[in-house]
């Protein structure tokens, strides 16, 4: 059980890094951050900024592909589908 929880925690923290970034890239937060890093003049930060920008680009690509995947499964006749979605009341 302990082993299971440990592996779970690891999985969780790994995933947390990736995905929060996916969402950030989508909302432009990531871009802003990398730009901010680039403004400082020291070489190492600039390098860091470039790295971050590159990472940001990758994440943007991930996000784009995620959005494409959503479009590919999203019901085509959204408006009609949603309006027709009427249930009898349950409990």
């Amino acid at each position, binding site marked *: 059980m302990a082993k299971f929880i440990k592996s779970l925690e690891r999985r969780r923290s790994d995933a947390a890094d990736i*995905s929060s970034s996916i969402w950030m890239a989508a909302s432009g937060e990531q871009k802003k951050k990398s730009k901010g890093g680039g403004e400082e003049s020291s070489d190492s930060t600039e390098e860091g900024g470039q790295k971050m920008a590159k990472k940001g680009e990758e994440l943007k690509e991930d996000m784009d592909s995620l959005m494409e995947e959503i479009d590919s*499964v999203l019901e085509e006749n959204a408006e009609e589908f949603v309006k027709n*979605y009427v249930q*009898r*009341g349950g409990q």
Partner: protein
Amino acid sequence: MQKRIYGVETEYGIIFTPEGRKTLPVEKAIRFLFEKLITTEHFLNVFLENGARFYQDTGCHPEYATPECASPKQLIIYDKAGERILEDLQQYAEEKIREERIPGKLSIFKNNTDFVGNSYGCHENYLVDRDVDFYYLAEQLIPFLVTRQIYTGAGKVFQTQDGVHYCVSQRAQHIYQKISGTTTNDRSIINTRDEPHADREKYRRLHVIVGDSNMSEYTNFIKVGTCSVVLQMIEDNYINKDFTLRNPVKAIKDITYDVSCKRRLRLDSGREYSPIEIQREYCEMAQKYIEQYPVSDEHKEAVHMWQYVLDCLDTDPNKLDRKIDWLIKRRLIESYIDSRGTSWNDPKVFMLDLQYHDIQRQRSLYYLLERNGAVDRLFTDEEVDEAKVQPPQDTRARMRGEFIKLAREHSIQYDLDWSNIRLGNLLNVRVICNNPFETDTEKVAELVRTIQKTNLRKTSLSKLVIQS
């Protein structure tokens, strides 16, 4: 009660969308769902090998009731297993319908509302001690249940004359009472239905009908885990503060429409608290409680998660965009709007909302996020798959599940409910199990062996009634 039985009943939304002219009314579509389940029980009402019950409920909804579970985590695994079972049945039904030459799509949603304002529920059941004063328990629990939606809500897009909005909970706007006996009209926070499916002298059922159905394992676990801790604190008379709300039914609606979770609510005492503050008070008591009282590791974990979630809600709710359903879904919709340059008024936004809850993993947006590593899980696919076919090993469900397997193997006629097994050609042999903690499967195996030996002769069978 430290040892408790947990159960969840989930009603699913279902719709058939024809691709041609021919359509299929929902009454007929739902029958196709049950076709794959071979059983000698009543059609549209069966118990499954994992001990769960699957049936058609009020308003033609497929409903899955988990087997009796011994812990919140186990419960969430069995609730997820229900989604997977239904997904199998949905795929089979869709094929069958196609064979009938009615091309179309059968969609099943794990949410709680349709487009015009009908609601269907997700009911939590907690076994409680008969000795505890039920109305005292209910009154103590209500402020907690009213405000917990800030981390248990599944989120909903809705339209008013002013435009399109997003609210915290699917279910909140369909609640009209604090406590009541009905579930279809005048829905309440706590329902008084008292069917413990156990010794009535010892136990009663606490039937909470205010919750949303959750896709996220994290949300679902924190929902049941925190409620269970609070329940235990009430049973131990540990809660020494009074959060009675002046108008809980109004409060539940005010909270759902306030995505900041900070609007203040008036208590009976005249003081005002925000939902986050009320939850913090409960959570702080729980933190002290788990230090002083014997509490399971799962419950401790739930309390730690609870604190984390409240901290995030207070400072930066978007930190919960992988954990809490209403915030995961909001992030999804906002990201879609951003990347597609559209707005909340786009009909696709409503579709994103609905399709998040699709149980078919290839169509579901929740599962699309899961595949892309964008939501936190607590369990593995293997654990969920096992729960589709294996009953919980530490409750009565184990006896039921084992019995169903044996009976099918030996083609024995049977009929079941939660505390009875009836079998034989005349269903005249009965095993009564009033103790939901009992797990004696040998009793079941012996019964099946005896039946095979006696070749189902009525005379010898009448002596076989076993009581436990």
